[in-house]
């Protein structure tokens, strides 16, 4: 086993950094959360699609429970898809420059989408909806 380690690694003798599995664990924990959140989300989408009315959606989001759950759903989804898309890019794109650009673009889309979604939802939830 020691034969595979770098001279510096052997000299330090610390083993792994102990945080290499962060994404692995995060992907699975967010997956478990999303099973429940998305089932609730499908149910909510069904409820909102029944009328398609602005006022129905606004008052639905005015409920703290709905607002909290939809914000959680958005955050867990954008976090989960950020990791998933990064894995796909790392699997299929091997040119370093292209890979870096795509990974950064993925971060921008996911953090940008999460920020936009949460701000919009909270604005309406806190009564700032245009009516």
């Amino acid at each position, binding site marked *: 086993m020691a034969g595979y380690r770098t001279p510096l690694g052997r000299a330090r003798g610390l083993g792994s950094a102990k945080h290499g599995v962060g994404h692995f664990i995060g992907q*699975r924990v967010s*997956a*478990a959360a*999303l*099973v429940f959140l*998305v*089932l609730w989300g*499908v149910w909510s989408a*069904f409820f909102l*699609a*029944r009328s*398609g009315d*602005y*006022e129905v*959606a*606004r008052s639905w*989001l005015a409920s703290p429970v709905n607002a909290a759950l939809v914000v959680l759903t*958005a955050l867990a*989804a*954008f976090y989960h*898809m950020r990791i*998933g*898309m990064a894995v*796909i890019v790392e699997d299929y794109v091997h040119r370093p420059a292209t890979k870096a650009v795509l990974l950064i673009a993925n971060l921008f*889309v996911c953090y940008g*989408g999460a920020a*936009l*979604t949460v*701000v*919009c*939802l909270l*604005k*309406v939830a806190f009564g*700032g*909806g*245009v*009516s």
Partner: protein
Amino acid sequence: MAEVSPGARARPLSPHLQVWRWHATMAASILHRVTGVALYGGALVLAGWALALASGPGAYGQYVGLLASIPGKIVLFAVTVSVFFHMANGVRHLFWDAGKGFDLRTADLTAWIAFAFGLVAALAVWAIAALHGAF
């Protein structure tokens, strides 16, 4: 790396996608990625919905109208199938992470269950929605 000596017999290449017989576990694995990418788009549809809602009744009405159009409905149905398949197959992955369900029979069976769940659950949700006048 060992050099290939000149005149050596051509070594077999590792199998490519085209020479595999399609089987359920392979299709499920590929579809998990495909539906994951589709749901990436689905999350952006959700972001658009939140933006339309925060922009007022006019914008919201336009956005809902877009989603209710025929192309909008096709996209939403694809997202619904993707949600349920990706969810079922994701649960399958969580069991694998726990070291369970790896034998061929179970892996095959659960792949078919994931396909069926994706389609049946999506059709059920849309049928219930149609019965309740969501169209």
